[in-house]
C-alpha cells in the first residue's frame, strides 16, 4: 500500500511522525460517550466475527484461501478495501489539498486499467494454476530460487508495513484524539491478532468488506456537507480560483506537458509509463496482498468479475478522498475566521513549541514558513509567539480537520471508527498475506516439507500471532530510528517493478526460462535499489533518472519503477535466449499460449465480464476527458 501513497507519506515520513507527536499539544477533538460507544461496538463486532468464523477455518484451504467460496462482490470489495487504509485516505486528501485533482491519477490511471487487465487476462492463470500465492506462481514458472527470493522479500515487506501502519495509526489517534500511543497500538494489535488468528483469511475479508461500508458511511458526509457549504462544485471552483489564483487544481492532464508546469513536478510520460503501467500493474496484478482476495473467489467467473466490480468502487473513491482535500482549501478556518493554511510536515517539525508555549527554534521556523508555506506574514508572527489557536496543521490532517468541522457526537465516532477500521484492515491484510506466504513459500519448502494439513494451519495461526508481535516491534523500531521509514516504504518499489516484468514475461512468452526469471528479478531489484541509493547520496541523480532538471521526487518514483521494469525485462529476454526453455507441455496453466482456458458457462449478457469491463473502461476514459 505504501507504494501507492503520496510522497508526503511515502517519501517523507522519516520526520513527520515524531513531528506530529511533538506538536500535538492539544487534540483536535474530544470524543463524547456516544462516540466511544460507536467505537466499542465496532471492536466487539470484529472480535465476535473472529470467534464466529473460527469453526469454519479448520483446513488450510479454509484458513489461507477462505475456502475459495467468496462471491464476486465480496472478493471485489475486499480487493479494493485492502488498499483503502486510513493512511491512504488521509495522505491523498492531503495531496489533493496540495496538488489538486492531479492526485486522482493514483485512483484512476493508477488502478483502473490494471484492475480490468487482472480480471480479463491474468486471473485465469492465477486461478487455473491453483496456486496459493504469487510466489507460488513464480515457483511453478521459474523455479524455487525465484519463489524464495520473492517470498522472503514479500514477507519482510508485509511485517514492516504492518508495523508502520500500526504505529502511524497510533500517532493519528494521538494527534486527533489525544489517545496514548501504547494504548492505541495494543488495542488495535490485539483485536487484529484475535480475529485473523481465529478466522484466517475469511475473517480478514469479512472485516474488510465491513470496513469498506464503514468508510463510506463515515467519510461520505464530509464531501456532501462541504459541497453544500461551498455552494456546489461551481462555488468550490470559484473560491479555489479566487484563493489560489490558478485553475490548475481542476486539471489532471492539461499541465503535465512539462515537469515545471505542475506542482507535483511530473510529466505525463511518467504518469502513463511509471504509474499507469509499471506501478499500477505491478501492485494490482502481482502484489499478493490484493491478489489473495481475488484468489478466494468461488469460481473463475467470480474471480474475473471481482476486480471489475472493484474498479467501479475505486473510481468513486476520489469523492471521499480528493474532494475533501479540495474543499479544505476553501472551507477550513482558523479560530479567528481567517482561512486556515495547511503546511508540510517539515514546517510543522520546524515549528515545534516548547514547554512555555512558544516556538522552540524561531529562526528555523521562520525560514521554513517563508520558504515552504503560503502562510500570511501576520499569521506567521502569531505562530512564532505561540498565540492561542495558531497551531500549525499539516496537509495530511486535512481529512480529520474536515471531519471535526462537520461531525458532532455519534457521527464523529463513526468517522473515527472508519479510520480505525481502515488501519486495522490494512494491518490484517498484511499479516494474513504474510501468514500465507510464510507458511506455503518459506516454511513448507525450506523447513518442513511433509507436514499434515492441520500442522500448516497451526503454523499459519502462530505466524499471524507472531507476525503481529514482530509488527509491534517494527513499529517501535520506526519510532526510534526515524530514517528507516524511507527504506521501508521504498522496499515496495524495489520489488514491484521487477516482479511485474518476471510475471508478464512468464505468462506471455513461453521462451522465458527459469534462470532468466530469477536473474531478471534479482537484477531488477538491485538496479532499483541502486537508483534509490544513488539519488539519496546524490540528489542531482534525480534529474538523470527522471530525464529533467525540473523533476521532483514523485517523478523519480515513477521513472525508477519504469527503468527497473525495463532492466528486468531486458535481462529476462537476453538470458532466455542463451538458456534452455521448459518443454511446452510443462507450461500448461502457466503460459498464455500453452494453456487452454476452461470454457465458462453461458451467462445472460448483463453478467458478462467483458461487458462490465468495457463499461468500466468507458467511464474511466470519460472521467479523464471530463477533468482533462
Amino acid at each position, binding site marked *: 500500500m505504501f507504494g501507492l501513497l503520496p510522497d508526503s507519506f511515502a517519501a517523507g515520513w522519516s520526520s513527520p511522525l515524531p513531528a506530529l507527536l511533538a506538536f500535538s499539544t492539544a487534540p483536535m477533538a474530544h470524543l463524547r460517550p*456516544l462516540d466511544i*460507544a*460507536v467505537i466499542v*461496538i*465496532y471492536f466487539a*463486532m470484529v472480535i465476535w*466475527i473472529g470467534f*464466529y*468464523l473460527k469453526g*469454519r477455518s479448520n483446513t488450510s484451504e479454509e484458513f489461507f484461501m477462505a*475456502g475459495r*467460496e*467468496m*462471491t464476486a462482490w*465480496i472478493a471485489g470489495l475486499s480487493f479494493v478495501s485492502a488498499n483503502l487504509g486510513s493512511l491512504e485516505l488521509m495522505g491523498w486528501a492531503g495531496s489533493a489539498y496540495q496538488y489538486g485533482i492531479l492526485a486522482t491519477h493514483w485512483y484512476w490511471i493508477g488502478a483502473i486499467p490494471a484492475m480490468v487487465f487482472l480480471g480479463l487476462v491474468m486471473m485465469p492463470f492465477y486461478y487455473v494454476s491453483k496456486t496459493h500465492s504469487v510466489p507460488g506462481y513464480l515457483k511453478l514458472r521459474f523455479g524455487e530460487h525465484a519463489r524464495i527470493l520473492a517470498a522472503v522479500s514479500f514477507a519482510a515487506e508485509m511485517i514492516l508495513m504492518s508495523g508502520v501502519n500500526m504505529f502511524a495509526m497510533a500517532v493519528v489517534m494521538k494527534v486527533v484524539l489525544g489517545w496514548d500511543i501504547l494504548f492505541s497500538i495494543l488495542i488495535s494489535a490485539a483485536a487484529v491478532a484475535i480475529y485473523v488468528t481465529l478466522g484466517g483469511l475469511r475473517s480478514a*475479508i*469479512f472485516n474488510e*468488506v*465491513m470496513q469498506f*461500508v*464503514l468508510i463510506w*458511511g463515515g467519510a461520505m*458526509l464530509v464531501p456532501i*456537507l462541504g459541497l*453544500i*457549504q461551498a455552494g456546489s462544485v461551481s462555488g468550490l471552483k470559484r473560491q479555489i480560483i479566487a484563493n489560489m489564483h490558478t485553475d490548475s487544481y481542476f486539471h489532471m492532464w492539461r499541465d503535465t506537458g512539462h515537469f515545471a508546469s505542475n506542482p507535483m513536478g511530473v510529466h505525463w510520460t511518467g504518469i502513463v509509463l511509471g504509474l499507469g503501467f509499471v506501478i499500477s500493474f505491478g501492485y494490482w496484478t502481482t502484489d499478493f496482498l490484493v491478489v489473495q482476495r481475488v484468489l478466494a473467489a468461488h469460481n473463475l467467473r467470480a474471480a474475473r468479475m471481482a476486480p471489475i466490480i472493484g474498479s467501479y468502487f475505486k473510481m468513486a473513491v476520489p469523492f471521499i478522498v480528493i474532494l475533501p482535500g479540495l474543499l479544505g482549501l476553501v472551507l477550513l478556518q482558523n479560530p479567528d475566521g481567517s482561512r486556515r493554511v495547511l503546511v508540510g510536515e517539515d514546517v510543522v517539525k520546524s515549528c515545534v513549541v516548547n514547554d512555555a508555549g512558544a516556538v522552540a527554534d524561531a529562526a528555523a521556523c521562520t525560514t521554513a514558513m517563508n520558504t515552504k508555506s503560503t502562510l500570511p506574514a501576520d499569521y506567521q508572527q502569531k505562530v512564532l509567539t505561540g498565540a492561542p489557536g495558531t497551531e500549525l496543521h499539516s496537509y495530511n490532517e486535512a481529512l480529520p480537520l474536515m471531519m*471535526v*468541522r*462537520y*461531525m*458532532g*457526537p*455519534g*457521527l464523529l465516532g*463513526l468517522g473515527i471508527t472508519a479510520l480505525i477500521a481502515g488501519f486495522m484492515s490494512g494491518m490484517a491484510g498484511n499479516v494474513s498475506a504474510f501468514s500465507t506466504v510464510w507458511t506455503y513459500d518459506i516454511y513448507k519448502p525450506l523447513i518442513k516439507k511433509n507436514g499434515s494439513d492441520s500442522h500448516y494451519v497451526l503454523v499459519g495461526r502462530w505466524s499471524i500471532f507472531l507476525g503481529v508481535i514482530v509488527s509491534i516491534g517494527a513499529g517501535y523500531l520506526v519510532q526510534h530510528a526515524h530514517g528507516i521509514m524511507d527504506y521501508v516504504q521504498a522496499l515496495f518499489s524495489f520489488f514491484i517493478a521487477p516482479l511485474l516484468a518476471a510475471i508478464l514475461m512468464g505468462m506471455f512468452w513461453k521462451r522465458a526460462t527459469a534462470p532468466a526469471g530469477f536473474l531478471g528479478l534479482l537484477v531488477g531489484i538491485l538496479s532499483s535499489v541502486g537508483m534509490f541509493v544513488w539519488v539519496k547520496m546524490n540528489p542531482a541523480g534525480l534529474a538523470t533518472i527522471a530525464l529533467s532538471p525540473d523533476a521532483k521526487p514523485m517523478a523519480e518514483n515513477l521513472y525508477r519503477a519504469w527503468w527497473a521494469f525495463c532492466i528486468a525485462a531486458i535481462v529476462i529476454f537476453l538470458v532466455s535466449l542463451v538458456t534452455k526453455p521448459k518443454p511446452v507441455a510443462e507450461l500448461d496453466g502457466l503460459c498464455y499460449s500453452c494453456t487452454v482456458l476452461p470454457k465458462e458457462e453461458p451467462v445472460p449478457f448483463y453478467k458478462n465480464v467483458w461487458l462490465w469491463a468495457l463499461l468500466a473502461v468507458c467511464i474511466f476514459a470519460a472521467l479523464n476527458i471530463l477533468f482533462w
Partner: protein
Amino acid sequence: MHGSGIPIWFFIGVLLVVYGCMIFGYGIFELMTGSYPPLVELTNLHTPIWWGGLLALLGIFYVVKFRPGQAR
C-alpha cells in the same frame, strides 16, 4: 460467502441499524433540546437525523434480505 453460515451482509446490516438508531436518536435529542455541539458547522441541517435515518434504513434492508436461513 453464504454457504451455511451467516452472510457478511447480515453483520453489516446489524451494525448499520445499531449505528443508525444511535445517531438518529442523538439527532432527535439535539432537535428537542436545541443543544448543538459547539464548533460544528451546519447544525441547522440536522445531519444526525437524516444520516442516522439513512444508515438505519439501509441496515434494515440488509438485515431483512440477508437474515440467516433466508433462501437466496
